[in-house]
């Protein structure tokens, strides 16, 4: 058994139910009507017996698909919600960042907002006086601090909020999807901060969708699914489960579309080659990938639907090719960021109904290097753009 003093947060068998009235009693009239009527409330079990411990100095990741209950868990940890059952023990000061810049008021100056936000995060005026210069420095907003927040650009607002968040040291920090906002430069800043936290042994709880971050920073991770813990363990293991979960969802989704259990074996094989005709699973951003598809000939296969997915679950693209000949060769240009991808092929009949199994192709990897003539961009895919004036 681990020493009690090593535990930062102990979550003991918490349940959280939300009662969802069919008609919300927002007014007396509705309330009166609903008392007369039979009370048709439904209880939604958002968290159903969750227990875990976060040790001091851990970088603890919480992942799960949308609706798995991770935001609710986070709000329980932050003390915003009260558990229906069970208990949460927190040893030490805890600062949650469910959102950056909580309580920011557009009518107040930058300076006033720093103090207001700081107070809401649990710091008194004296502590804020000490931190103030550092915060402003880090945000690079010295000359704007006396201006009203409403005159800030959204980027400036995020910078200010983020600076408060990272200068606001506390024993336990909780972040929710912070990386989801901001541009590339901002995200890099976040990464730097996380690296510092990790090096310093700061206790951090991070809720995220991004498995890269989990693998890179977390010492332990937890995956939630429909209100229960699927696994607590190494980030690698959890990230794998997360990917499988997403994948199986995609597959289930596609299978659902399959006509009444009618399945044919496609006998499909998928291979990738580079433009010179050599087998390969590793390409550079901007390279052409030649997909070689071989399958059993059948009149049923009107088309083949070829999809490319990122390993973390995003559907990148999908297109249809004629599917009667028994083989196909397609060249796609991999305008993709670095990462792991795979293809998924499905045959459809003339009514666009799926026939036969979905076949998953091998993974391929995009490296950071760029092929000649490819400019950089951030985000998932490069969208075409034209500068009208600048």
């Amino acid at each position, binding site marked *: 058994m681990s020493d009690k003093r090593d535990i930062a947060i102990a979550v003991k068998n918490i349940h959280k139910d939300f009662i969802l009235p069919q008609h919300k009693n927002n007014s007396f009239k509705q309330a009166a009507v609903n008392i007369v009527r039979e009370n048709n409330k439904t209880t939604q079990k958002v968290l159903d017996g969750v227990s875990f411990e976060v040790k001091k100095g851990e970088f603890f990741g919480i992942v799960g698909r949308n609706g798995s209950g991770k935001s609710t868990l986070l709000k329980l940890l932050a003390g*915003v919600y009260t558990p229906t059952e069970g208990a949460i023990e927190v040893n030490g000061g805890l600062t949650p960042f469910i959102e950056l810049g909580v309580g920011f008021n557009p009518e107040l100056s930058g300076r006033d907002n720093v103090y207001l936000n700081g107070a809401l995060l649990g710091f008194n*005026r004296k502590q804020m006086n000490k931190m103030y210069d550092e915060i402003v420095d880090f945000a690079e907003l010295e000359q704007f601090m006396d201006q009203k927040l409403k005159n800030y650009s959204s980027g400036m607002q995020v910078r200010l909020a983020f600076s408060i968040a990272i200068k606001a040291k506390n024993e336990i920090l909780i972040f929710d999807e912070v990386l989801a906002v901001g541009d590339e430069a901002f995200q890099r800043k976040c990464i730097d901060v996380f690296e510092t936290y990790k090096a310093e042994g700061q206790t951090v709880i991070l809720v995220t969708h991004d498995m890269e971050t989990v693998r890179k920073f977390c010492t332990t991770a937890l995956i939630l699914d429909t209100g229960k813990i699927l696994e607590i363990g190494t980030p690698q293991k959890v990230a794998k489960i997360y990917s499988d979960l997403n994948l199986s969802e995609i597959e289930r989704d596609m299978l659902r579309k399959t006509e009444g259990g009618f399945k044919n074996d496609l006998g499909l094989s998928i291979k990738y080659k580079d433009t010179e005709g050599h087998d390969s699973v590793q390409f550079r951003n901007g390279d052409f990938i030649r997909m070689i598809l071989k399958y059993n000939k059948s009149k049923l296969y009107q088309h083949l639907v070829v999809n490319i997915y990122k390993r973390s679950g995003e559907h990148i693209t999908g297109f249809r090719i004629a599917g009667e000949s028994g083989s196909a060769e397609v060249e796609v240009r991999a305008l993709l960021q670095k990462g792991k991808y795979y293809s998924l092929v499905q045959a459809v009949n003339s009514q666009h109904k799926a026939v036969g199994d979905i076949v998953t192709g091998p993974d391929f990897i995009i490296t950071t290097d760029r092929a000649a003539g490819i400019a950089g961009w951030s985000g998932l895919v490069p969208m075409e753009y034209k500068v009208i004036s600048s």
Partner: protein
Amino acid sequence: MKYLHSRNRAILREMISTDFKIRYQGSVLGYFWSLLKPLLLFAILYIIFTYIVPIGKDIEHYPVILLLGVVLWSFFSEVTTVGAGSIVASGDLLRKISIPRYLVVLASSFSAFINLGLSLIVVFAFSLFNGLLPQVSWLLLIPVIIELFAFAVGIAFILATANVKYRDVTYIWEVFLQGGFYASAIIFPISLVPADLRIWFFLNPVVQIIQDARYALVPVEGNVTIWQLTEPKLLKVVPFALIVIISITGAVYFKRRSKYFAEDI
């Protein structure tokens, strides 16, 4: 415990100062409006009840009595209305951060309290101008105002909690206050009410408070207080008992429901 204390004080302080900074945002007269509002209401009432319906004509220091009544009533009305809507108005905040929920209600109450302080300065200046001299009895205003504050905050806690579930509360309370204004003997001195009906007025804690305050400021016979009533003796306890009951109910009700504010709003 000390940490918690200073943390809450910091939040309260920032909330009150935010309220002050943004309240009269963009208006030319700015904060003077908090003084002007009761003064203008007073001016209207004074003109009506001295010249048009001359109720106050024969009353000693009627303008002072009227102004004090208006100022105290405005305070009561501000604490309860702003307080009633305060939790719902801070919904966004309460869903994202776990600060003690009562701070939100207290912050709005204290803002009103500071307003009252400023208004009272005007009342004192006006009293001197009206020929009253400062006297020891003015100090009695302090416990009376504390009593009013406790009563108003108690109501604010009940209304704020109920308002989370039933948004009708703020609208009903507005109407209730309109009636309360007349039931609280603000424009007319209670001495004009027939003696046997006065008891009913005094069941209202606001009447007891305003009459005590008037007597403290202008200690003349005409300012009847609850203490001058002879029968029934037990009546004198009623306003205080009501305040205690409402404050305790407010605290308990608020505390019980506040755990669920974040999900109910």
